[in-house]
């Protein structure tokens, strides 16, 4: 497990962590990393547990708001860091239990989760009044919550994590979460989750309690989304209701589809590429950038229905198979339609 799952992630992840800031602006990289983590959260529950959550932004937003509110009340940032993971996880466990124990499936689940994030969006937008106050934190309605403490270096509370140091921290977490998910998917629980995705009825007939397992997976996904939200809050130094918006929710799904659902690395790649494209498009005013993102989605669905990353992997295997010297390395030509190892 270590050699196949952990090591490659470290071999690629650690150098990338130091090379990327030389090529791109650390400020941009940090938000792309938060997006990648958010995409990874949906990539996990959708691609491996078969739960299409249209409202993953809700957990992202909850993580960010929990962090901001807790930071304002506690005056420090490390406690809130954990609260930002815990609140969405608990919320998702309760909400998920209602959905999965109620046997809500597929499209209904997508609609209900979408409505959930829109309700939070509406609520946060209309929370400008004095009464919307949690301890010292005013929710602030449309303007959101600014001015909270952000993360510091744990052993040096005077030194804030920002710019490059925040990027290292975020990217390190991304690599860590990726490794944890890969290990989880190799464990019996993870393998059974994939079984549920493949055939719920059979999983039940085997004796698996799919309601409980899906609830747990949903909650894990929400915890990761919350962590992404926390990083976003530290990066933006403000949280606003836009985190819960329909656009944000849709974007996460587009990242996963374009990058490659059914893989872990695909959503990360998708989020990074599309996030960066959006950033570049934001610097010009010739074309509307949602239009361009829409075109990319359509092209990806039509031309690379498996997503960018699995297509690259297949291209790589194809190239390897063409090389006579490398041929014996390939065990069998017909690999799975989803490259589950990636």
């Amino acid at each position, binding site marked *: 497990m270590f050699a196949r799952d952990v090591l490659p992630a470290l071999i690629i992840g650690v150098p990338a962590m130091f090379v990327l800031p030389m090529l791109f602006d650390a400020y941009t990289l940090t938000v792309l990393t938060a997006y990648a983590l958010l995409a990874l959260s949906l990539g996990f529950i959708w691609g491996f547990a078969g739960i299409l959550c249209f409202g993953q932004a809700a957990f992202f937003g909850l993580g960010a708001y929990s962090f901001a509110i807790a930071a304002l009340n506690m005056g420090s940032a490390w406690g809130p860091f954990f609260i930002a993971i815990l609140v969405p996880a608990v919320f998702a466990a309760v909400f998920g239990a209602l959905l999965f124990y109620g046997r809500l499936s597929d499209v209904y689940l997508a609609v209900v989760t979408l409505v959930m994030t829109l309700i939070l969006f509406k609520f946060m937008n209309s929370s400008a009044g004095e009464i919307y106050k949690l301890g010292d934190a005013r929710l602030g309605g449309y303007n959101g919550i600014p001015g909270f403490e952000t993360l510091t270096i744990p052993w040096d509370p005077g030194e804030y994590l920002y710019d490059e140091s925040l990027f290292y921290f975020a990217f390190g977490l991304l690599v860590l979460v990726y490794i944890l998910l890969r290990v989880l998917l190799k464990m019996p629980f993870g*393998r059974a989750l994939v079984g549920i995705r493949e*055939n719920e009825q059979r*999983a*039940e*007939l*085997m004796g698996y309690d799919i309601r409980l397992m899906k609830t747990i997976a949903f909650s894990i996904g929400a915890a990761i989304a919350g962590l992404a939200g926390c990083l976003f809050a530290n990066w933006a130094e403000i949280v606003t209701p836009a985190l819960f918006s329909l656009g944000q929710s849709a974007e996460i799904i587009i990242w996963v589809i374009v990058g490659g659902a059914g893989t872990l690395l695909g959503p990360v790649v998708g989020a990074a590429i599309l996030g960066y494209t959006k950033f570049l498009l934001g610097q010009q005013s010739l074309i509307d950038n949602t239009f361009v993102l829409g075109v990319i989605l359509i092209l990806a669905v039509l031309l690379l229905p498996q997503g960018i990353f699995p297509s690259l992997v297949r291209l790589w295997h194809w190239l390897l198979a063409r090389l006579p010297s490398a041929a014996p390395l390939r065990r*069998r030509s017909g690999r799975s339609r989803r490259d589950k190892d990636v």
Partner: protein
Amino acid sequence: MSNRVELESRGLGMQFGGVHALAGVDFKLRRQELRCLIGPNGAGKSTFFKCVCGMLKPTAGDITIRGQRTNGLLPHQVARLGIGIKTQVPSVMNGLTVRENLWLAARRDNTSAVANRLVADIMDRLLITDLAAELLETLAHGKRQLVELGIVLAGQPWLILLDEPAAGLTADEVDRMIDVITDINRESSLIIVEHDMHFVRRIARQVTVFHQGRVLIDADVDTVMASQDVRDVYLGKQV
């Protein structure tokens, strides 16, 4: 062979709107029995089957498995009592390999090491070891039937319900299936829903005939095959 009753239904009824798919089924299965359920389409065989395994909740009557009342239990809870179910259309995990399909079934009650051994044994027994790394979606129907049977065995059930195990199999595959079923029956009780009379004649001892949601006759296979009532039911006459 012990005569202990392991599965029993009393007055089992299942109503869909105004339709009585089951209208009071009394059924008993004894230990290590191999029982075939037959009957024309719509007789209630599959509904009975689904009620037993928890996919449907009966609207009347009771099911008792080894002394425990099970109506209202969910499929996974019924499965955990030690009951293996093979559905009519092979219900397998298409995107996973044969080994992984069996492993997931074996792992639920066992440690990984035990599960690995169990999977290897079962693949040996069903002669599907060479398919271990194949994805289910690439297999032909007959192999899928066999793999599904392997999944059921991997759960080490003491009672196995098979819904049309011979459907769509070639003559050779049917022979193989019969061998496997006979082999399984040495340890486990079996209930088999089947349409194919030749198949039933070859494996059955005791046969239960369903008709219009009730048990028409419950007797040994020769009596059933000779029964005028059974012939009439299959030819669509009123009994």
